């Protein structure tokens, strides 16, 4: 379909050499007047270039099949798009004349069919450095899980979730309405549809340019056959010594390497089997809706995350290895690469910090044990005892009910006495526990933190049970007071219709109810102070554990690798593209024998690096979730009425840490197949395992890409 507005769009790489010499412009033609320049070939004839493009001479010695590039770029062939610096030469109607000068930053282009021209200049991303551009931001998390959190039905979160769903439905309806708001029914033109292809073309442009420039000597002047033979002779002569080395290397790879490799694979597999067994234990549930071990304990969770990572790494690594069999311009696996090294780096970092922490803990374990037991007895026993004593004795001038206060206080004090005996019994063992924590930290600093978090929940078990008991008592009293208040008003709560009905009570019923109401009402403050005390200490412990969990989340998920990449080479973390309109240079009169070009706008295309906000997106989500759970009015209401405030479900809290892992881990057999299927494709040996960061160091392709 020819464009009727005469707009010509040219994508022009900035690094195309700006010289005075004539050349042939080669590139993709996306549609009639929509062209993408890949290279300017100098010192060749336009006709022979056209032929070479058709026959494929220019794509000889490509490291990978050129059809892959064709498929990516959505074109079946490259074309000659025009001539550079050769005014006066006859060209086809759709081809263009370009004028470049060393002192001019932008080319000047004219075309017979173009009424206006957009020249979009871009920097070629270097595929060897894994730079690329993309329309949408790179995703650091593995997106195969739904964002929806799972809640037990009837819990606080489930109701909130329902409300959120309602909200979402409402916005969806609004968006549906927005769809009616289309005044112009615009049919997308070919130029608009080409955008995705063009992004791929930009990503492939550097490698294609290299290939074309390498093969330029094959076009035209000399016959191909003699050239290739002579080249081969020269090459074999210069690489005689290399041949010997390669032969020795071949022996090593044929006889020694497979054994090592098989051994390594078997070792990995054994590890995988052990991991599977442990994971099964950690995930075992007595009933489907019961909590598994990993839901209760932070340590179990931490171990599970590590095991899952170990299970996932071989798969990730195999996927990354497949990258070698394709053009480097294929950008599908770059996020996977970042994710793999991100998790690897975090684990190593964790271990390094863990070794430092562990050696400190081991050196000072007795001192630490003493301090911990001191703090424990001071805050969780002595302070609690003093508070209860204070509550039993008219706290802050409040005249509580003496008898009830004494009863409740004695009850709690008695339990605390027993608990302190238990703690005393624990005291001699504590240094050994600390020593154990210290040794565990050689598996990463997250282990002692998780263990400490678990130890905290075990050692403050009595506070938890006090909170449960007092909340229960308070809640009972509160509900009884509510219904007695209805009785006092001469009404009752109709359970079937869920409303308040008026009711004729007998005199004795009313009398007894009112007496009970008064009694309970005057006893309420006594219960409230006890409830408040334990609720506060419970909240303090929960927030301490939340802080520890956040620390764990930081150690397990902090986007360290992404941050480093962002600082080192922000092109590797694309977050979209942006355009910049440049001022037009005045060409008129500069070149006398060139026809005046149509109105031209020069636009620079740049890659926008990923924003820091997007990098920490998951943390914002976590913060939002915690805030929603603990600071919602519903939770405050629960706290006020003595209903049990459930701690946030570990699954929601830890979705952050699982974001790098697949939702369903691959089985043992899958791993075996993945690891062994690779064997026939392998040729060049051990070094392949080392060069994973996108650099090819093979003898044949000795390429040194500069900075």
């Amino acid at each position, binding site marked *: 379909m020819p*464009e*009727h*507005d005469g*707009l010509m*769009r040219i994508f022009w790489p900035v690094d195309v050499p700006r010289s005075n010499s004539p050349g042939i412009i080669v590139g993709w033609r996306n549609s009639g007047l*929509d062209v993408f320049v890949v290279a300017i070939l100098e010192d060749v004839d336009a006709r022979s270039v056209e032929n070479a493009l058709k026959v494929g001479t220019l794509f000889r010695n490509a490291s990978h099949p050129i059809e892959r590039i064709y498929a990516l770029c959505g074109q079946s062939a490259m074309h000659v798009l025009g001539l550079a610096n050769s005014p006066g030469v006859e060209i086809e109607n759709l081809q263009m004349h370009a004028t470049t000068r060393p002192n001019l930053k932008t080319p000047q282009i004219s075309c017979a069919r173009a009424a*206006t*021209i*957009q020249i*979009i200049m871009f920097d070629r991303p270097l595929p060897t450095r894994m730079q690329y551009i993309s*329309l949408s931001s790179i995703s650091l998390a593995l997106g195969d899980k739904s964002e929806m959190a799972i809640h037990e039905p009837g819990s606080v979160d489930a109701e909130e979730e329902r409300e959120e769903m309602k909200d979402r439905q409402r*916005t*969806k309806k609004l*968006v549906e309405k*927005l*769809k009616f*708001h*289309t*005044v*112009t029914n*615009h049919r*997308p*033109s070919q*130029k*608009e*549809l080409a*955008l995705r292809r063009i992004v791929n073309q930009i990503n492939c442009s550097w490698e294609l340019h290299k290939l074309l420039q390498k093969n330029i000597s094959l076009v035209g002047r000399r016959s191909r056959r003699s050239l290739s033979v002579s080249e081969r002779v020269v090459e074999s002569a210069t690489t005689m010594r290399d041949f010997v080395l390669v032969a020795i290397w071949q022996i090593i790879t044929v006889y020694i390497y497979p054994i090592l490799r098989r051994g390594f694979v078997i070792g990995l597999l054994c590890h995988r089997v052990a991991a599977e067994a442990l994971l099964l234990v950690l995930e075992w549930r007595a009933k489907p809706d019961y909590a598994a071990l990993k839901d209760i304990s932070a340590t179990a969770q931490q171990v599970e995350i590590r095991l899952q990572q170990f299970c996932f790494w071989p798969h990730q690594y195999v996927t990354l290895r497949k990258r070698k069999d394709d053009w480097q311009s294929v950008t599908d696996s770059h996020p996977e690469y970042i994710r793999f090294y991100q998790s690897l780096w975090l684990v190593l970092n964790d271990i390094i910090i863990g070794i430092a922490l562990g050696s400190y803990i081991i050196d000072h374990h007795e001192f630490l044990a003493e301090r911990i037991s001191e703090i424990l007895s001071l805050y969780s026993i002595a302070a609690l005892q003093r508070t209860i004593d204070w509550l039993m004795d008219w706290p802050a001038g409040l005249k509580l009910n003496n008898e009830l206060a004494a009863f409740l206080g004695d009850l709690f004090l008695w339990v605390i006495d027993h608990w302190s005996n238990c703690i005393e019994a624990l005291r001699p063992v504590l240094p050994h526990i600390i020593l154990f924590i210290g040794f565990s930290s050689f598996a990463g600093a997250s282990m002692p933190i998780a263990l400490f978090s678990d130890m905290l929940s075990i050692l403050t078990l009595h506070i938890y049970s006090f909170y449960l008991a007092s909340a229960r008592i308070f809640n009972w009293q509160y509900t009884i007071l509510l219904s007695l208040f209805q009785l006092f008003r001469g009404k009752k709560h109709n359970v079937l219709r869920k409303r308040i009905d008026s009711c004729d009570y007998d005199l004795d019923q009313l009398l007894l109810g009112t007496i009970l109401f008064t009694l309970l009402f005057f006893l309420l403050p006594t219960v409230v102070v006890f409830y408040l005390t334990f609720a506060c200490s419970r909240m303090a412990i929960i927030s301490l554990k939340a802080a520890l969990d956040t620390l764990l989340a930081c150690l397990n998920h902090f986007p360290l690798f992404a941050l480093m990449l962002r600082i080192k080479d922000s092109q590797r973390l694309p977050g*979209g*593209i*942006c*355009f910049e*309109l440049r*001022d*037009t240079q005045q060409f008129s009169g500069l070149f006398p024998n060139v026809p005046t070009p*149509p*109105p*031209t*706008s*020069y*636009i620079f295309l740049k890659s*926008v690096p990923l924003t820091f906000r997007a990098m920490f997106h998951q943390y914002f989500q976590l913060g939002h979730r915690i805030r929603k759970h603990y600071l919602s009015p519903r939770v405050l209401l629960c706290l006020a009425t003595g209903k049990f405030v459930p701690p946030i479900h570990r699954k929601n809290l830890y979705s952050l840490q699982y974001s790098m892992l697949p939702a369903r881990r691959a089985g043992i057999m899958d791993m075996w197949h993945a690891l062994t299927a690779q064997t026939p494709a392998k040729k060049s040996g051990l070094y392949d395992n080392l060069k994973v960061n996108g650099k090819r160091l093979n003898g044949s392709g000795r390429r040194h890409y500069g900075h």
Partner: protein
Amino acid sequence: MLTVAPHLRTRRPSPTTVEYTVSTSPPPTLPLRLLLGLTILLRVTIGLSVLLLLYSKFLLSDYSTPLEPYSSRPQLQSNAFIWYLAYNLTTSRLGALFTHLATLTPPIVLLPASFTILYLLSLRLHTTESLLVLRGLGIQTSSSSSTFLSGSTTRFIPTEKIQDIFVNEAFRGFEVRYYLVVVVEGEESVVVVFPRLLPRRQILETVWRGVRGCLFEPEEKAG
């Protein structure tokens, strides 16, 4: 004087590419440039003096090691030169004044106040927002950030994703403001063009007409 009401500037190098810029900065004249340069100088001076005050406060605290005098002037490109400068600065009369000031202010006042001042100094005077329309590609909104610390935020919307562009009105405080909206296909929220400045209706109408004219190819005549 340094800022004016939002006004429109148009750059149209070719009929198919337009950039509309709405900005509060007045057209650059020589006195204005001098004035702006002066404000920058003022900012730098105030910023440096705040930093010096903070440094003198740090020297007064227990955590610092006292600076040692240098007998000779060290090499220009060395760490020692920095310490030499710092010593000379803090022992000069100006430094003594700052040290005196630092002793007077408690750290709980000094730290928040100096950080607030540093933040205020990093604020931009002008707000510039623009809309770039490229036929065949799409439109791009960009908005300068409020501080010098970060660049402008841009958002590119391909043409195939644009569902509609229109001018809408909304209450804001006690006034009715008009705003240009881009409806993006498959997104829950619309994109507001010029979100910080919200220019007057005349400007918006000009921009709207320009965008409608420039973005889409003219309809093919029947036949």
